[in-house]
C-alpha cells in the first residue's frame, strides 16, 4: 500500500487521465484482479475479459471515486459486480480442460495425475459455492482482504460476509475432507 499523499497524487493524476498513472494502476493490480476472476470463472479467457473490463470501467468512472478506500478495494468492488452480473447471465462458466493446462508443464505421468487431482478438488470446491459466497470466499482467501474490506467491496454488511465465508469454508472443507481421505 502506498502512503496517503502518494495515493492522493496518484488519484489526481488518474482523474486527469494521465497515461502513466493508468498504466501504474494496471500493473499494480492486474495480477490480483485476474486471480480473482480466474478463480471465480475457472477460465483463463473469461478471466482476461473480466480483468480488462474492470480497468476500463474503473477508468471510465474514476471521477466518481472519492478515494475513501484503497484503489485496489475499489477495483475488487468493480470486478465483483462484473463477475456477479456474468454469473447471472451465464449461470456458470466454462472451465478449461485440466489436461490442456498440465501438458505445458511437462511433469511425469504420476505428477500429472496428482496435479490434476488437486486442481480438480479446488475447482469442484469453488464451483460448489453460489456466486456471492464464492466472491466473499475468494476475496478473503485468494485476495487476502479483511472482512471490513470485503464488506466495502461487495456492499454487504460485515455480518453477512462473515456468515458467507463461514458457510463457504464448511462446504470447501467438506469437499476437501471427502476427496482427501486420510
Amino acid at each position: 500500500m502506498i502512503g496517503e499523499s502518494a495515493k492522493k497524487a496518484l488519484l489526481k493524476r488518474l482523474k486527469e487521465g494521465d497515461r502513466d498513472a493508468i498504466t501504474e494502476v494496471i500493473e499494480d493490480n492486474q495480477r490480483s484482479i485476474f486471480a480473482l476472476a480466474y478463480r471465480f470463472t475457472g477460465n483463463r479467457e473469461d478471466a482476461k475479459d473480466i480483468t480488462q473490463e474492470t480497468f476500463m470501467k474503473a477508468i471510465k468512472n474514476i471521477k466518481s471515486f472519492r478515494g475513501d478506500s484503497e484503489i485496489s478495494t475499489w477495483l475488487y468492488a468493480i470486478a465483483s459486480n462484473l463477475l456477479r452480473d456474468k454469473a447471472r447471465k451465464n449461470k456458470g462458466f466454462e472451465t478449461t480442460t485440466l489436461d490442456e493446462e498440465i501438458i505445458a508443464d511437462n511433469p511425469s505421468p504420476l505428477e500429472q495425475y496428482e496435479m490434476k487431482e488437486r486442481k480438480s478438488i479446488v475447482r469442484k470446491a469453488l464451483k460448489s459455492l453460489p456466486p456471492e459466497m464464492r466472491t466473499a470466499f475468494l476475496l478473503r482467501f485468494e485476495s487476502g482482504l479483511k472482512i471490513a474490506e470485503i464488506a466495502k467491496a461487495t456492499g454487504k454488511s460485515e455480518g453477512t460476509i462473515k456468515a458467507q465465508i463461514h458457510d463457504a469454508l464448511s462446504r470447501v472443507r467438506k469437499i476437501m475432507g471427502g476427496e482427501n481421505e486420510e
Partner: protein
Amino acid sequence: MKNSEKFDIESEAIERSMAEFLKGDPVPELDPFELSIMTEKIVSETTAKKRRWFELKPAFQVGLAIVSVIVFIFALNVRTKTIKVFERGEIHFSGENISEKTIIEAVEKGAIAETEVLVRLFDIEKSEKDLLKRIYARDIDEFIDKLSDEDVENIMEHLDKLGYPRSKEA
C-alpha cells in the same frame, strides 16, 4: 471433520490452510504480451475520450459565445412577441421599441433566459431547447465526459446550425 465445527474465519491457521488448498490449482499469469495489449487497449480508450473532450470543449465554448453574441447584436425587425419564461414572467418587445440594451438588461437580470431567446428567435424545437439548457446548467467537463457518441453527434449538429465548424484538431 465435523460439519458443525465452529472456526475463526479470520485466524492465521485458516488463512494458511486455505492458501495451501488453493495452491493446488495455481492461478496462471498474463504473459507480458497479453498484459501489454490489455494495457494499451485500456489506455487508448481513455485517450480517445480525452481527444473527444479537446475537440468538443472549444466547440461548446465558442458555441455558447455565439449564442450570447446573437442575443446582443440581434437585428430588431421583429414583430411583437410575448415571451413567457416559466416563472420569470413576460417581456414584451417589438421591432420599434426593443433595443439591444433592453435585451441585454433583460438577460442579465435573468428576466429571460438566453436559451429561451434563442428558442423563440430561431424557432428551435423544445427537445433541442432542453439540450441547450443542459449545456448551460452543467459543469462542462463533467458533462462532456458523460456524453455518449450519439449525444456528441446531436450536439455537433446543433452547433452546425449555429454556424460553428464541425470539429477542430486538438
